[in-house]
């Protein structure tokens, strides 16, 4: 069985993560309940006429995937697998609004064509002329993790030598308003917002795209290897420790083997309790959080994956993502745990490629 290495990354987020060194330019937000992506200029990735037509998610996906491929020095992947929780909401809203406002008359197909969840994966394939395996997973907070699991199996089984994977979600105005109505998004009255000490329901909502090239070959520029991925549909808070313990044991790991644990805390007072038992379990381990930088969206965990990749590659844990101020000299084995509203739990183990 081959090992699955991460050999290229590209990340567009609410921070300037696309054109800078790892987290070298970050700003902390306490006052906005929605954060928008810090988008690069798309000129070098997409023809100008198409830039105007394409929705944000597609553009972010194309740019982030181009960067990941370039870093991995790969022209054409064997497979493209994307994950997106909400899909192409911008075009979906546009088309639905046109249907409702004009009583199903005078419609044009463009936004419908671009509304399907696999538009990003399809457009990347079209641009690269990639005729290989092309999948899109759409299952809330495990959309990205399913893509990762699928790719990992294919690389390990030698069905694919290399796979481009990514998590992408865009915001759109109507959906944001709906999420505010039911307090998925934090209320204005609850400012200032905090992820470390959650004091209100809901999340700071955002968007982004993180893409990765996975290959069966270790290279000088490898970030890490993907050792294990687990997905669990739902858990009670008191079941989390057992879930993590069983998962680690199944991969011959103990909590003390973990050099850093990357947690998906998003500042929602109703659900961040899910991470409490993990914090206890890994009391002596450096703890990392990231959603104070990325905000929350269904594939925000792909931003966390990007953070973990960089910590391992750089062998350095930046202060800005440190949750308990603990540091280690070496980051060999890193565990990621994420969930959203008690559902779609995922665990990932990454290992330093150089060990």
């Amino acid at each position, binding site marked *: 069985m081959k090992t699955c290495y991460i050999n290229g990354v590209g990340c567009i987020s609410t921070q300037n993560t696309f054109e800078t060194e790892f987290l070298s330019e970050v700003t902390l937000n306490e006052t906005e309940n929605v954060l928008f992506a810090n988008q690069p200029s798309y000129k070098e990735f997409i023809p100008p006429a198409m830039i105007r037509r394409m929705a944000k998610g597609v553009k972010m996906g194309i740019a982030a995937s181009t960067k990941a491929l370039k870093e991995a020095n790969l022209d054409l992947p064997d497979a493209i697998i994307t994950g997106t929780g909400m899909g192409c909401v911008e075009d979906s809203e546009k*088309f639905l609004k046109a249907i409702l406002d004009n009583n199903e008359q005078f419609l044009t197909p463009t936004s419908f064509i671009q509304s*399907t969840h696999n538009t990003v994966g399809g457009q990347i394939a079209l641009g690269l002329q990639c005729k290989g395996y092309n999948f899109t997973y759409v299952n809330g907070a495990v959309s990205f993790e399913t893509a990762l699991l699928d790719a990992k199996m294919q690389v390990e089984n030698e069905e694919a030598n290399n796979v481009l994977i990514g998590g992408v979600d865009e915001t759109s105005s109507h959906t944001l308003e709906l999420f505010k109505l039911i307090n998925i998004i934090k209320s204005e009255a609850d400012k200032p917002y905090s992820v470390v000490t959650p004091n209100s329901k809901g999340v700071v909502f955002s968007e982004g795209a993180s893409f990765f090239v996975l290959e069966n070959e270790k290279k000088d520029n490898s970030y890490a290897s993907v050792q294990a991925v687990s997905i669990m549909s739902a858990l009670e808070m008191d079941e989390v420790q057992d879930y993590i313990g069983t998962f680690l044991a199944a991969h011959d790991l103990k909590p003390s083997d973990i050099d850093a644990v990357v947690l998906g805390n998003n500042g929602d007072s109703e659900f961040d309790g899910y991470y409490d038992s993990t914090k206890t379990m890994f009391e002596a381990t450096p703890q990392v959080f990231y959603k104070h930088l990325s905000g929350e969206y269904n594939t925000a965990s792909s931003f966390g994956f990007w953070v973990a990749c960089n910590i391992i590659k750089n062998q350095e844990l930046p202060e800005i993502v440190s949750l308990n101020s603990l540091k280690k000299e070496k980051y060999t084995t890193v565990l990621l745990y994420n969930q959203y509203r008690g559902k*779609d739990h995922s665990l990932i183990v990454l290992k330093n490629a150089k060990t």
Partner: protein
Amino acid sequence: MKVAITGMGIISSIGNNVEANYHALVNGKTGISTIENFETVHKDVIKVGEIKLTNQQLAQQLGLDSDNNFSRTAMLGAIAAQQAVEHAGIQHINEYRTGLISATSVGGMDMTEKYYYEYFENEACRKYINSHDGGDSTHKIAEHLGLKGLVTTVSTACSSAANAIMMGARLIQSGQLDRVIVGGTDALAKFTINGFKTLMILSDTYNTPFDHNRKGLNLGEAAAFLVLESDDVVQKENKKVLAYVSGFGNANDAYHQTASSENGEGAFLAMQKALKIANLKPSDIDYINAHGTATPNNDLSEGRAILRIFEENVPEFSSTKAFTGHTLAAAAAIEAVYSVLALQNNSIFPNLNFNTPMEEFDLVPQTTLKEKTIHHVLSNSFGFGGNCSTVIFSKK
């Protein structure tokens, strides 16, 4: 490595369970009709494959409380998945490492389009806001089954369910799971009706797959699920195996966001890969359940791809979409059930409404019910975004 199918469930416009669907298929009884369950200005100019049960009736069948927030997509899925689990004789769903992989194209769009503006005025309907995304319908199905484990959703437009079957088979083959419930669900929605209408590929009458004068597709709604189990579980539980998933292939046409390439490159590659994985020659295939949507573009492209694979020896083929309409993300799941039924009953189901062969090539689908020993069925599904999928089902 083959993966066993030990149960299946289905609800479509030609029947609310496997037996009813089989009965309609062998009797040539179409489910295409005029839309009744919701209002649309296109009501009188299109035909659809609609399940003639209201949301209230579906909720009642599932025993849901009045405060439930199931979209129609979730309800159809839960009904079909429950049938599949019962058919497989599963008593304790979490006894083995069990997963659920569903497929949907628009998820809870049926509720979103109903309450899009009303959400702001009426608090009572806000329970549906969280039912919109694709994963919600899958979670609802999992909860209905009491399933806790790997639950996820595929959305690759009209090929989605084939890909759910593929991922399920892969998870069993790699030893990650012992049992996976795979399939897809999609409810009719104004969103998709108007979408396909703007693309001008909706027929104003009964769809006629592979006919020279085909005018486009009829949309339909349906859900179907299969239970896939590892050899270990089959042996331990002494399970009756209905058929096997013996091969699968997925490729991208990389030609156009919605249209298929003229020579059916993606479809060709998907069939080729599936045959390779199944370790079969084209001549081993006894029946092709074609995608056959009856759009000018699909049937020409798919026909050419079939000719490229099978050359002079194209086996009997038919599209069952004249029965059910095109049920989008559920299509490959209901057609998987039909493929298994074809294997079990050694029957090829007719391609209804066919009169005139296409002039581009010499391909004539099977238009009457035909009995024939069937060992292997190849089922095609293609979707927007260039997505092309093939699954091969085998008796042994």
